[in-house]
């Protein structure tokens, strides 16, 4: 029995290890190539770590490419999108969770419907709509499009978090003397922090890595985001793998920082003790 238990545990851990290795290997390869000097890139064959490392690619990317600009654009677009979507989704999710109103069913159906189309289908009409408004080749245009595509899913996500918070709490607050909005702000929102963190993180990463619309709506270097920027390392005759990977590693940093910041809110259980449990 004990022996079987130990064997089972070992098998379990090995399986997790194998999964983590497979999942993280591309990231490892990204890091490895980014520190491999150009002269070793094609001459050493397949090795797990180059015989000599250098940060020349990083230096080049930061000093001689437009990457810092791409990076800044991406931060602006992703942060604005995450921020706007989370506010809209909180309000909409609260409404869907708490109120019964006419047309609620159809609104939900409509929101689900928007999630069913392949985005490629919408590229042309969206371009056609944004062009006369002067929103192509602009960060604002990208934010508008990203917000539109992320709000439905984020709303459902927030709704499920609101559903988990007992209605009694805001009723108690309203009887204590709060307006509904104040009860929402002071009682319900603090309890939804894990949900807000999850939504922020989800939308931020979605916007951070979006390529299709960024590629189609943006043509100049000034408004490019970093996924588009990465493509500039691919030229007609060669691919600057080292620089591309270095840029990729740097692009991972904000996403990692972001999750580090919000991970403590992602831990659930804040509502424990509110009601008899």
């Amino acid at each position: 029995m004990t022996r079987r238990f130990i064997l089972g545990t070992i098998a379990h851990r090995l399986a997790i290890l194998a999964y983590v290795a497979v999942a993280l290997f591309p990231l490892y390869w990204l890091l490895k190539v980014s520190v491999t000097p150009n002269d070793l890139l094609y001459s050493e064959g397949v090795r797990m770590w180059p015989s000599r490392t250098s940060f020349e690619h990083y230096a080049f990317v930061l000093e001689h490419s437009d990457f810092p600009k791409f990076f800044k654009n991406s931060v602006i677009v992703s942060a604005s999108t995450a921020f706007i979507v989370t506010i809209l989704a909180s309000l909409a999710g609260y409404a869907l969770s708490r109120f019964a109103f006419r047309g609620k069913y159809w609104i939900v159906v409509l929101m689900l419907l928007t999630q069913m189309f392949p985005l490629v289908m919408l590229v042309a009409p969206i371009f056609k709509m944004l062009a006369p408004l002067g929103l192509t080749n602009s960060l604002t245009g990208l934010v508008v499009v990203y917000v539109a595509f992320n709000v439905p899913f984020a709303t459902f996500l927030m709704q499920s978090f609101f559903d988990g918070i007992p209605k009694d709490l805001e009723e108690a607050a309203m009887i204590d003397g709060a307006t509904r909005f104040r009860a929402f702000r002071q009682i319900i929102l603090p309890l939804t922090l894990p949900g807000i963190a999850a939504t922020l993180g989800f939308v931020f990463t979605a916007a951070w890595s979006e390529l299709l619309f960024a590629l189609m709506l943006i043509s100049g270097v000034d408004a490019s985001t970093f996924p588009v920027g990465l493509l500039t390392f691919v030229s007609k005759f060669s691919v600057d793998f080292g620089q591309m990977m270095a840029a990729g590693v740097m692009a991972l940093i904000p996403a990692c920082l972001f999750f580090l910041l919000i991970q403590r809110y992602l831990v659930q259980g804040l509502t424990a003790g509110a009601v008899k449990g």
Partner: protein
Amino acid sequence: MASIDIAAIHKSYGSIPVLHGVDLTIRDGEFVVLVGPSGCGKSTLLRMIAGLEEISAGEIHIGGVCVNDLQPKDRDIAMVFQSYALYPHMSVADNMSYSLRLRRAAKEVIAGKIATAATTLGLENLLQRRPRALSGGQRQRVAMGRAIVRAPKAFLFDEPLSNLDARLREQMRGEIKRLHLRLGATSIYVTHDQIEAMTLADRIVAMNAGLVQQVGSPLDLYARPANLFVAGFIGSPAMNMFEGTYRAHGAGFAVITKDGAAIPLGRAYPCEDGTSVTVGIRPEHVAISSAGGVAAPVDLVEPTGFGTILHLRAFGTDLKAFTLERQTVRVGENLPVALPPERLHLFDAQGIRLG
């Protein structure tokens, strides 16, 4: 403190009516208990007084002011929820002071009121704790504390003790009653537990199927139930009921049950000879081993320690009797039982009390 007037209140959810016109006046300082089975509309009525449910028709006045269109925050009432509804991200002190902070009370005033409430409820050492670090009974006290820190026009209780175990419930019941005697606050208390209703209420409002069945003092409802519903709902074990026909019998009147047994009545009742009636008697009023009793076979014996509940067969139906005496009788044996005429309740075919 204030009186509460409820006039012709209706409530429907969509096309489904829940309350069919409730009229009720609650005097200043009175403790009124709404009691009834699940789904009778008692909680809905309470939530309408609190402003948490819209009023479909009718008017509610608190302290003479019509509150139909007032938000809960403007009604100046306090409510204790069944789930306690404590704010999990606030300490006990912050939970209790939330309403005062919303009203921008001075810091010293808040501190004073919290201290007083904490002493009253024995929460002095828990003020800095979060709700999750409290036991069920302590959470219940905090919920009470949140209500008493301000002096609202009325206290509303929505089954506040249902989540506690039996012993704690008994203790908190006593504390609520003591608190009411001390504060003298107008209180409306919803429960389905008739012991809570009997022990706490100045007046009980018995409700069923969206209608008020009877309003009166606890002993009123117990001694003179207005209809079959109240007769059956108030009292435990429940009242025994026999269906039969009202007839002249010997020198007086009796109810003749379906299998021909006669239950003699002590007097004439205001109904025609031959009317279908239901006669009721409480188990504790069934007389055992009295002279001239009917032999009733024992079906089941339930000792409660406090007394004994006997399940018998008599007058063509099941009959429960409660006696304080220790019973050594066994199942299958016969006991002589009698139904003292002065203890009988008579109801007509519609279930309305006669006489």
